[in-house]
């Protein structure tokens, strides 16, 4: 047996520079936290925002110069390709927006501490590793870097009873999920003899009918479904989302979802498409039950964060629907539709969470739907923006939520998943009720002190810009420009779906 020396040349360092930079800033932030001179909220904020901005620009540049074919380094440990850079760009963009919002929130002094920023950057570095790898070892290490860091961030940023409870529940179920995923990887390895995703698909072709592969595929889809928060395995999501500080909730709902979806695309499209007869029914079942049960459970929610958590489970269901369509006969629609859905979901959620964070600043606690009563009178701009977000989450035209659902349904229908699409349509009809409830509260009800209409947060430039920006993107992508975003999604998907 010979061990090839990895090819660590300049082009590897330049294409992995975002991950390297974030690992370095993580260490710098940690050292700043223990030094007497530089330990201040301001310096932590500067190093965080500057390094994230630099990383984002770097990723955009790398996305621009990378061609249609991807390049492998470290014998599959790192892939420099458009799909990876797409996911990385989305994740770092989310991290930047979340840090800007945190900088304007009541939790600012707690979040911008050396050790928290160090954890935050490690989490992002883990996410960036996970979306750009062909190797199950690296994928698992990246996943755990992200997950373990997030458990600690939730419990440690502002240790209240709520956040600790959310962290413990998330930790237990997240660790079980990681173990199940890993057990699946172990059986895939046992059956195929390799841990490279691309080699697994080759090996599966040779040994068809091996029951250990099928067990491995089922365990893998269950583990991914746990992390994606699909319905039989969704129990942690509302608790973790409600317990966490709202900025971290926004980060988890968007960046974690991007990471898991991109990794799932790689594992299932590149690796396990040979045994799709085994995992597609499981995934289809999870998608259908998420679409129905998450929307039904969301009807009864009072807390806005909990409502958005159930809505995020339902949105995972839509993406799982497209993932299930991936191994049918018509393959070229499903990956671009997932990526487009990710863009739309990330923009909408960030906007909605930005408004919630801004409203929370006044109160320093979770807000419930009743708190929004009469918001349209006091803050017409915020109320209109929140209605746009709710319309988009519910999938009404002329917002991007409509177009992205259309693409998902198109991908599913072109692979004859008619039953799942009907379930999805029923689910999205149910979901309109609770999205509309928020809008009705804001516009059609008079505020009274009993219901808590006294929220009068002060103006915030950052929130205004971010909310305005997301409204603009939602409306533009929903009307004039969906083509350009779809083209980007198609370019990024070319790496796995071959066109």
């Amino acid at each position: 047996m010979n061990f090839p020396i990895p090819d660590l040349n300049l082009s590897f360092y330049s294409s992995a520079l975002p991950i390297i930079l974030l690992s370095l800033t993580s260490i710098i932030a940690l050292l700043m936290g223990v030094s007497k001179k530089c330990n201040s909220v301001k310096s932590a904020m500067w190093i965080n925002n500057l390094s994230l901005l630099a990383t984002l620009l770097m990723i955009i540049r790398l996305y621009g110069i990378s061609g249609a074919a991807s390049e492998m380094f470290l014998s599959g440990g790192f892939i420099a390709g458009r799909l990876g850079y797409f996911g990385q760009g989305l994740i770092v963009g989310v991290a930047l927006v979340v840090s800007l919002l945190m900088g304007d929130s009541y939790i600012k002094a707690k979040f911008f501490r050396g050790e928290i920023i160090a954890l935050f950057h490690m989490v992002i570095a883990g996410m960036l590793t996970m979306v750009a790898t062909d190797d199950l070892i690296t994928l698992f290490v990246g996943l755990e870097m992200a997950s373990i860091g997030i458990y600690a961030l939730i419990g440690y940023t502002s240790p209240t009873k709520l956040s600790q409870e959310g962290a413990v529940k998330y930790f237990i179920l997240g660790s079980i999920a990681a173990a199940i995923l890993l057990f699946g990887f172990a059986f895939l390895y046992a059956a195929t003899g390799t841990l490279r995703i691309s080699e697994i698909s080759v090996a599966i072709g040779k040994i068809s009918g091996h029951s250990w592969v099928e067990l491995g595929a089922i365990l893998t889809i269950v583990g991914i479904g746990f992390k994606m928060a699909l319905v039989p395995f969704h129990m942690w999501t509302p608790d973790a989302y409600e317990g966490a500080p709202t900025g971290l909730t926004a980060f988890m709902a968007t960046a974690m979802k991007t990471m898991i979806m991109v990794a799932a695309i790689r594992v299932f499209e590149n690796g396990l498409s040979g045994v799709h007869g085994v995992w597609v029914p499981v995934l289809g079942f999870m998608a259908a039950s998420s679409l129905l049960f998450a929307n039904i459970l969301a009807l009864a929610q009072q807390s806005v964060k909990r409502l958005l958590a159930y809505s995020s489970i339902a949105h995972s269901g839509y993406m799982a629907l497209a993932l299930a369509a991936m191994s049918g006969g018509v393959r070229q629609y499903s990956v671009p539709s997932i990526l487009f859905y990710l863009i739309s979901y990330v923009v909408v959620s960030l906007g909605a969470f930005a408004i919630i964070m801004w409203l929370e600043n006044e109160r320093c606690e979770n807000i419930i739907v009743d708190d929004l009563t009469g918001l349209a009178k006091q803050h017409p701009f915020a109320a209109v923006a929140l209605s746009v977000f709710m319309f988009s989450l519910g999938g009404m035209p002329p917002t991007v939520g409509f177009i992205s659902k259309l693409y998902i349904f198109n991908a599913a229908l072109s692979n004859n998943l008619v039953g799942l699409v009907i379930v999805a349509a029923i689910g999205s009809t149910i979901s309109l009720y609770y999205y509309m409830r928020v809008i009705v509260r804001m516009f059609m009800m008079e505020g009274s002190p009993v219901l808590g209409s006294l929220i009068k947060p002060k103006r915030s430039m950052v929130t205004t810009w971010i909310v305005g920006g997301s409204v603009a993107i939602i409306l533009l992508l929903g009307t004039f420009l969906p083509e350009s975003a779809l083209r980007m999604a198609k370019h990024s998907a070319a790496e796995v779906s071959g066109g």
Partner: protein
Amino acid sequence: MVPVEFYFVLACVMFLIGLFGALFRRNLIMVLMSIELMLNAVNLVFVAAGRSIGNVDGQIMVLFVIVVAACEAAVGLAMVIAVFRKYGTVNTDILRLLRG
């Protein structure tokens, strides 16, 4: 030589014991131990498979899994301590603020 399938079956049994322990035990320390048991079942499959295939990838993965399990245990125990300081017990039944 023992057939490799025997190891897999043993690992499945260990994994299920760990899974049921993690889901149904009420004590947080026991839950953590059950999660470790699940990860050890995974390690057993990796080592047995790597040995039978004649490939070191499985053993390398085991090293990574051990490292990650240690990190998980560190964070998990820190959380258990935090819960114990707030509530004076490590029983999961007291974690009932978030529900619905």
